[in-house]
């Protein structure tokens, strides 16, 4: 597996997916060699081994901020990418049946490796550069995505929405795209009874793509009617200062809590404690965090275009631009207890119905298809 980030050193769905899918594929009896540019103490699992370039690759500034290349870090960052790809491409490995690359980081090396080992390449796309840049892609990344889509025998997208984009915008061959959704581990504890009032939560990177300003604008619309409710923003990112200013401008400066970067432990506690979770993303290839919230029994409002909206029916789904509708949905969940309870119960069931073991089986099935086709194609 040609990866990038891996827990506990991760920022998003890519890291979670890499870990869970590696662990479960290994549990099915396969051997997983996980390649990453950085030699770090990862949370591994039996049957999963890590390899990274022998030289001491410098960790790029701001690491593990993989989703946005900060100004000034570009040169260093791309040096890491180039070295990583070169290293992957010439790596000596025996007994490999399939090379599986995640996102754009290692596509070039993965392609060379698969070619040299004479095995098929599978590529999972978690999010695209086009989406992350809101339509203004960084060419070096975009090109590596295209390269991967073309070289892969099978492409796995984490939602149907993403699959459509890969086919339509990146012009990848639709016949080789499969959808394998993300999942969530069932929480250790059952649903907790929430007190009245409570917290409406946003959790994610503070970038325009995640729509945190929509969250604040919606909060401001209903804050006067719900004096006991607080609105919390957990996460960090380039929009932080802007959001603090915005909350003051909207007159809800005293009602919004900014948690900043949170630990995994804090994350699950905050999620479980929320009265309502909101995922107002402009672009959201999947949105594992919404699935986590639902698995914890928190009623959830998501953007219609998010991948998670394809899997879960027991949510409110809203157009990402519709501030009044987000506001109304928040208010309705805060106001009507039977609504909260019914939605919580059913969302929890839906969110945990299919887990990572199912996703691993679906992934292995894609490997089998790829191997069959690769052999026939020669």
């Amino acid at each position: 597996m040609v990866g990038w980030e891996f827990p506990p050193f991760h920022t998003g769905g890519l890291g979670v997916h890499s870990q869970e899918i590696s662990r479960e594929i290994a549990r099915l009896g396969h051997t997983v060699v996980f390649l990453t540019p950085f030699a770090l103490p990862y949370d591994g699992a039996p049957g999963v081994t890590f390899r990274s370039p022998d030289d001491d690759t410098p960790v790029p500034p701001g690491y593990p901020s993989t989703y946005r290349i900060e100004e000034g870090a570009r040169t260093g960052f791309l040096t890491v990418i180039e070295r990583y790809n070169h290293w992957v491409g010439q790596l000596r490995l025996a007994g490999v049946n399939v090379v599986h690359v995640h996102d754009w980081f290692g596509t070039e090396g993965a392609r060379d490796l698969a070619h040299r080992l004479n095995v098929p390449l599978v590529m999972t796309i978690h999010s695209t550069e086009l989406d992350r840049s809101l339509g203004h892609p960084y060419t070096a990344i975009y090109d590596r995505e295209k390269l991967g889509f073309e070289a892969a025998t099978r492409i796995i997208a984490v939602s149907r929405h993403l699959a459509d984009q890969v086919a339509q915008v990146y012009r990848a061959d639709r016949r080789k795209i499969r959808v394998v959704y993300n999942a969530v581990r069932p929480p250790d504890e059952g649903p907790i009874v929430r007190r009245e009032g409570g917290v409406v939560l946003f959790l994610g990177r503070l970038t325009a793509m995640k729509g945190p300003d929509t969250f604040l604008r919606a909060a401001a619309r209903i804050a006067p009617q719900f004096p006991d409710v607080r609105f919390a923003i957990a996460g960090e990112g380039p929009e932080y200062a802007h959001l603090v200013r915005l909350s003051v401008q909207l007159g809800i400066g005293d009602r919004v809590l900014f948690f900043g970067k949170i630990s995994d432990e804090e994350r699950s506690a905050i999620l479980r404690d929320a009265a309502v979770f909101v995922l107002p993303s402009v672009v959201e290839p999947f949105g594992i965090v919404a699935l986590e919230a639902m698995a914890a029994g928190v009623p959830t409002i998501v953007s219609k275009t998010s991948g998670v909206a394809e899997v879960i029916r027991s949510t409110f789904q809203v157009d990402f631009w519709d501030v009044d509708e987000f506001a109304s949905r928040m208010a309705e969940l805060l106001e009507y207890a039977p609504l909260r309870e019914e939605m919580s119960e059913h969302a929890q069931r839906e969110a945990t119905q299919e887990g990572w073991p199912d996703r691993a089986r679906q992934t292995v099935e894609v490997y089998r298809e790829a191997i069959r086709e690769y052999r026939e194609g020669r």
Partner: protein
Amino acid sequence: MKLALYLHMHQPWRLARFRYLDLGSGKPYFDIPRNLDIFRGIAERCYRPTLDRLIELLDRYPDFRFSLSLTGTFLEQAEMAAPDVLDRVRTAVKSERVALVAETYYHSLAFLLPPPELEEEVRLHLRKLREVFGVLPKVMRMTELVYSDAIAHFAGQLGFQGVLAEGWEGALGNRSPNYLYESRTRGVRVLLRNYRLSDDIAFRFSNRGWNEYPLTAEKYAHWLSQTPGDVVGLFMDFETFGEHQPASTGILDFLSALPPEIAKAPHFHWATVEEAVQGPVAGGVSVEEPMSWADERRDLGAWLGNDMQRSAFEAARKAGSLVRLGKDDAVWTDWRRLLTSDHFYYMYVEGQESDADVHRYFSSYTSPYDAYANYMNALNDLRRRAVRDLSPPT
């Protein structure tokens, strides 16, 4: 043996999206143009062609008879969207071989509300039927064919001769639905739906996975001839013909082919529900808990099965007390339109998957949560209006 074909016509006033932020805005709750669009579509596919067939059958077969119920909200929409549908019903009624059935004007669960709501709604419906068709029904049905001893008692008090009910084993034990029964008090006649034979047409007709597919009029008449009893109640939604089952399935041709097949067997006679409730009674029937014709369990679970549904109905009941104190007709009408059972049906979540599919088919929302939140917003707005009406501005 009597064959009582009874078809039910109903359309609810569906709500527009009424957001929490719309409270107090004066925005109307009901999306009139959308409701009328839906009505026109169904009129085109179902009401017109099916009524034309039925009128043709009345002309051609002097023995052919049937019965209809049309809710008040259906009649309102028909008057606005497709008055020619009502002309067709008038033509059928003029034959004097078509009986109309009384019910609550708003297709509501008013039997669960404090009096006099139920009686007022039934009387509203009777008045409307007299205005539109000049007819006074002798048989009553409750919304969704709900039946209980109390409902039969109520029907008796209002002077109805008979009530329609589901021929469900839960109420009959091992007795057959194909006889006429009598209610526990007041001796009101209870005419039962044979749900197997009714659902063969209403649900299974176009099901290619059904081992009796395709169903022909000949085969169906043969089944009827094998059925022992005095009377068979074939009760179903009018929309079975052309809407739930599109014309392309052959359902309309099946309807047209049925009377000639029935005519071949000399012991069969079509009967209106008014004719069918005359005749010897096979015994008494007692139903304490309300029994409906919906879902696998035949209880009220389809409308009041989960906490959202129960809390919404409870909220409607409470709002009713305020509405009754006030004098504003518009508030009163809106409240009653919100009583229509369909609104609660849309909030259904649990249940067997087969039922959930049926619920989704009939729902005008993407989810039961949408349905509930929207309903509660409208109802809370209505409460505000009712209260404003009570306290004059100073």
